[in-house]
């Protein structure tokens, strides 16, 4: 597949409210492939953009796998592979296994949360087309950006620029890919 030389059209805004309103207007205008960038999380913005809610499932699976690993590891080692009589306690002394089962649940769920989040976000990705816009460096400081991807069926260079202009941004730039 040939890559589009243009990644999208980006508009820069001054405030969180302006970005939020712009994202909503863009969605309502019929654009579906858009994204917004901000220096901090903005409540409700992801819902406007349309974001999947997929992290919790990864964490749940991680936790279940961790708990099972923790318990079965102790069961197999103490009761199956090498049963050792310690103070006459049963080889499968389950109450004593709970603490490590718990810790392993937390460990696996926590690792799944962090690495699951990174993987679903497609990170690490040191290079990305949006970094081609020099002003985008401010997205990690105090500016807010909205992008309409060129893959959007409604995207056309001139029309989208006119539309974004109507949202009264600070600046508009075409993002080369």
């Amino acid at each position, binding site marked *: 597949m040939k890559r589009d030389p243009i990644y999208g059209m980006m508009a820069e805004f001054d405030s*969180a*409210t302006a970005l*939020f309103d712009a*994202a909503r207007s863009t969605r309502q205008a019929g654009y579906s492939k858009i*994204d*917004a*960038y*901000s*220096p*901090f*999380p*903005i*409540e*409700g*913005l*992801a819902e406007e*953009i349309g*974001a*999947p*809610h997929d992290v*919790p499932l990864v*964490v749940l699976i991680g*936790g279940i796998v961790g708990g099972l690993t*923790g318990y079965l590891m102790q069961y197999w*080692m*103490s009761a199956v*592979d*090498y049963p*050792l009589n*310690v103070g006459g306690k049963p080889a499968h002394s389950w109450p*004593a*296994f709970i*603490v*490590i089962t*718990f*810790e392993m649940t*937390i*460990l696996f*769920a*926590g*690792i799944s*949360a*962090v690495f699951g*989040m*990174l993987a679903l*976000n497609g*990170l*690490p*990705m*040191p*290079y*990305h087309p*949006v*970094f081609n816009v020099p002003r985008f*460096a*401010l*997205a*990690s*400081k*105090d500016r807010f950006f909205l992008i309409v991807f060129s893959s959007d069926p409604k995207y056309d260079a001139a029309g989208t620029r006119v539309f974004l202009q109507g949202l009264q941004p600070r600046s508009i730039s075409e993002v080369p890919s």
Partner: protein
Amino acid sequence: MDEQSKVSTVDVDRAPVIEPGYTFGTVTEKISAIVLTRPASNGWFVGFGIGFMLTMMLLYAIGYLFLKGIGIWGVTIPIGWGFAIINFVWWIGIGHAGTLISAILLLLRQSWRNSINRFAEAMTLFAVACAGIFPAIHVGRPWLAYWLFPYPSTMGVWPQFRSPLMWDVFAVSTYATISALFWFMGLIPDFATLRDRSNKPALRIVYGMLSMGWRGSARHWHRYETAYLLLAGLATPLVLSVHTVVSFDFAVGIVPGWHTTIFPPYFVAGAIYSGFAMVLMLAIPIRKIYGLEDFITERHLQNSAKVMLATGLIVAYGYGIEAFMGWYSGDRYDAFTIWNRLHGPYAVPYYLLLICNIFVPQVLWIRKLRASPVALFLVSGVILVGMWLERFIIVSVSLSRDFLTSSWGMYYPTRWDLMTYIGTIGMFLAAIFLFVRILPMISIFEMRTLLPEAEVKE
């Protein structure tokens, strides 16, 4: 949020979390400038130098220990635990306040935590690193410390999972891992800020790599916030479990003075107590030196003082119950342990402990003192000493005189014990000094969310 809009400037208890007049830009500049543009002062080099030299002393003490064995320490039968376990419990307890601030206060929506969570988490990591040294070098043959982990060995045996010492291995290593992940995850958006603000190409590459290419996309933030919240939800029971398991090391044994059910809650309260004391001992000089009084305000000091007061009272209750049970249980060995604490050879440290942990901190009831950084700094120091003495008493008094008079003995630390202990304090300090220079010590992106403009007005 409603609470904050009712802020009045007169009432110190409701001092603002961040002084007015800041914007996204100035918050960013102020915090990142400490890392990117501010030259290291002579004071920093002196402080780091002291920490570094003490770290060298620690390495020397450990090196000599590896050569000679733990006979160079004061530990002997009947007191086989000594400084190693005292310091382990002390350090790991200090770490707990970091997780409390970053995770539990996040779940409780205490937004004032945003300006102190980063360095409190750093404190946790460094404290856990110091703590982890002690059990590893205390095992006698430290080069075999990896035997603690269940790995398929040629001997065919597995660790003893019914022992609290084994639970400790899992609890502490999980705690260290989760704390490091939580800390790193919080740093990712700030690494992106440093990448974009730095004008040195090498720094841009380093911070760029560490930021994982973070670009602040709304979808990314959405997943990020979910994961952060879930991690906080996981870290909360974890931190409570860690000191509970540490207390099991004692409470599951039958030694008089250890075998009590009050140990888990009172260990957790004591951990948070000493941890907040360490947070204040770090925050008070740092905010002064780096001019961060606008971000770490009186409100933070006040709130930390209140947490110390509350947890200190829980600890006092724990001591009270211990004494009461010594009498009420009718167990002569328990009763003797209490008598021995009050009148035995370790009575002086016990009274010092009561003074440091119970009596002196009561001055925090006075509002004027809660608002005074100098007073808080001093009280925090007293609490840290007191909490160290508490662990000393728990370990030494009970082991020195248990069931059989013929097996009584005394424990006196040697210079190697002291060098190792002071060395870990130096290592902790050196790490903190490095941290404030190379990483943003306040979470920049979370500070931005505290500004009124961060909210979307519809």
